[in-house]
């Protein structure tokens, strides 16, 4: 809400209703096209793609069934709480009987729109979110009654102010140092505040019973999520893009239903493991992606290149807050008391995070450990370090990550890009050359 100093004035300049409507409908149409195209491309790459994937295709449509469903539930009295980042405690949102939806923006056209008012130095994820707001493009952002916005980087910090012109913003400050004695207690206090704010927005008390049941719901989701990631450790039974799509839809789907559908997918994939029915040849180079989040649908650019390239690659793991990190870590509760449960939620969101916003003497150790574990467990052949311009924290962590990977003898390639389709040709050369390098073990 605007302050007294500038009462009534908004960060985003006013646009005419007509202009907003025209831009919104053209970007929306383009986005629907991209969603369709991406789905078709995934189907083409994986000819025997299981039917169980179709559910996720449907949910992946930002302008489809799921939007309608949330709208209906909202009309029936439910609250929607959006969140911009994985530090937001989904368990608390669910415990207040609200619908959690992630609102991070992957729209390239919206980033272009954001350029009108954002400085070029700002990362495109933020520019795109602002652009989407300019024309009310994002259904989930628009449907949100409030938005939890963890202030993990400078872009997000200022995003809070911009979005506060339209929605109640509930900021959260994660401590930048994870392992100091006071870090967890500071964060738990932050959690207490956010709990109260969620209760205010939803007019619902988060009590022991509700929190317990929402933790259980999320634990089941985590179990299904992990089951899927474990299936990626062996020969490729699922393409990386498809796994990434399943992972991402968990951020806006009904989580109970998502869990069922993911379990069903895993059942099918396990059958295929027994039949040795692979999604691509088992000797396909195994790639891991790490860095800036890759948001559906436009930021499928690099995953598309990897899995459609000649030679082909398959993404068997990632270290992305838009991917394998989403639900990987369960909330570990010892005793189902209110304070124990609450502390467990708080701890999970701080300690399990490998976000580059953290710093320590030895760098972001948790992130490096995550990478090393996944590289070994998922038998990764090479790592693509993905950074969009302006994403300073990920860009700066590269040097240290590279040193560690060099020591492991694992090829890593720094792929920097923008929210644009113009560089696809050059990106293709980079990705293909990297995969050729990985493939070179097949001696030619």
């Amino acid at each position, binding site marked *: 809400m605007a302050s007294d100093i500038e009462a009534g004035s908004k960060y985003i300049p006013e646009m005419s209703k007509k202009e907003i409507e025209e831009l919104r409908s053209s970007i929306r149409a383009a986005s629907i096209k991209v969603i369709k195209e991406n789905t078709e491309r995934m189907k083409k790459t994986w000819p025997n793609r299981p039917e169980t994937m179709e559910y996720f295709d449907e949910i992946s449509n930002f302008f489809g069934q799921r939007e309608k469903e949330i709208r209906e539930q909202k009309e029936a009295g439910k609250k929607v709480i959006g969140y911009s980042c994985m530090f937001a405690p989904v368990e608390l949102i669910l415990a207040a009987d609200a619908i959690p939806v992630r609102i991070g923006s992957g729209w390239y056209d919206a980033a272009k729109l954001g350029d009108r008012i954002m400085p070029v130095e700002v990362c495109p994820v933020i520019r795109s979110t602002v652009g989407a707001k300019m024309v009310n493009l994002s259904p989930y952002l628009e449907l949100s009654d409030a938005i939890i916005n963890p202030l993990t980087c400078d872009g997000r910090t200022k995003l809070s102010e911009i979005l506060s012109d339209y929605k109640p913003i509930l900021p959260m400050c994660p401590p930048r140092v994870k392992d100091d004695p006071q870090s967890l207690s500071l964060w738990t206090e932050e959690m207490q505040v956010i709990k109260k704010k969620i209760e205010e927005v939803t007019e619902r008390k988060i009590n022991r019973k509700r929190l317990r049941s929402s933790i259980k719901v999320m634990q089941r989701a985590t179990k299904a999520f992990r089951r899927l990631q474990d299936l990626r450790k062996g020969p490729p039974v699922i393409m990386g893009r498809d796994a990434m799509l399943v992972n991402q839809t968990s951020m806006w789907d009904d989580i109970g239903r998502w869990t069922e559908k993911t379990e069903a997918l895993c059942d099918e994939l396990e059958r295929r493991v027994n039949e040795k029915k692979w999604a691509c040849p088992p000797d396909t180079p195994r790639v891991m992606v790490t860095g800036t989040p890759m948001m559906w649908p436009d930021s499928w650019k690099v995953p598309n290149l990897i899995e459609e390239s*000649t030679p082909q690659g398959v993404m068997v793991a990632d270290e992305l807050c838009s991917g394998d990190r989403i639900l990987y870590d369960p909330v570990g509760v010892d005793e189902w008391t209110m304070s124990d449960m609450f502390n467990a939620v708080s701890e999970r969101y701080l300690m399990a995070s490998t976000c580059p916003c953290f710093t320590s003497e030895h760098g972001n150790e948790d992130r490096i450990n995550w990478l090393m574990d996944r590289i070994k467990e998922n038998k990764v052949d090479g790592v693509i370090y993905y950074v969009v311009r302006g994403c300073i924290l990920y860009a700066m962590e590269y040097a240290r990550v590279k040193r560690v990977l060099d020591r492991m003898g694992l*090829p890593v*390639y720094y792929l920097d890009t923008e929210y644009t389709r*113009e*560089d696809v*040709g*050059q990106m293709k*050369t*980079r990705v*293909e*050359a990297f995969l*050729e*390098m990985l493939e*070179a073990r097949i001696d*030619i």
Partner: protein
Amino acid sequence: MTLMDKKEGKGEYWRWLEYRSIMPGRDWRNAEVITAGVDVGSVGSKAVIMADGEIYSWSVMRTGSNSSDSAKKALGWAMEGTGLKLNNFNYIVGTGYGRVNVPMANRAITEIACHAKGANYIWGPTVRTVLDVGGQDVKAIRCDERGKVVSFLMNDKCAAGTGRGMEVIADLLQIPIADVGKVSLSVNEEPEPVSSTCVVFAKTEAVGLLRKGWSKDKVLAAYLRAMAIRMSELIEKVGCERDFVITGGQSKNIGIVHRVENILGMKRLPVPSLEETGLDPMAAGAMGAALFAKALHERSMKR
């Protein structure tokens, strides 16, 4: 001596020489495996025909507006007068920016892998670092003794320091492109480099320097120095290990070569005589592609 055909430019300063040759004393009819590599770059299209893994003929041409036509023309010119027909080829590999638009190719491989392989063919197994300066990309490539890529870096999507940038500056200063390197080295003292590494801005800056009364050679030196610094940064980032070589069109630009050598404190391996060996570093990518074609053909035979 090779039989060398040249097509002269039409007087525009940026226009560089197109050429082709057939290696004497070799007959493709005696060969078991005939392969070709077609490298369609953004500025130049190169074709190399190999008979049993040895260069038989080759051509270097400008790329037209259509990649597929350029590929056909380049290969067609390399085939001209040889009696070779397309169905004589066992395998063809396309590479370069237009690699997916090489209609006769059996497979596409990136120019990064091909330049490393080509450099290994030209200079032998001691090559560890390849700087490929093409029409619109600069690539620093590290490779092993077999010419396999170990790591690489590529410039941003921008023409600074590339062949296209040189064409622009040659045109601006009205100096024939082939003389750009020589002229830039004729200055008594190396000037400060231009501050912009963007071709468009550098061009503006060059115009400003000319207005200030700078001589053409001094402006050229300032431009080439800026580009050489940029290339050297890329090499240093990937890590420069001996032996070091330069491929791509700019391997012919001594103004760039000397400056890069000075900045790195390392000499490149000398370029073999084109007339005697037919080994043109500008066509290294096409050579690598033709070699990959041979390997791929042999692999397909084993299956």
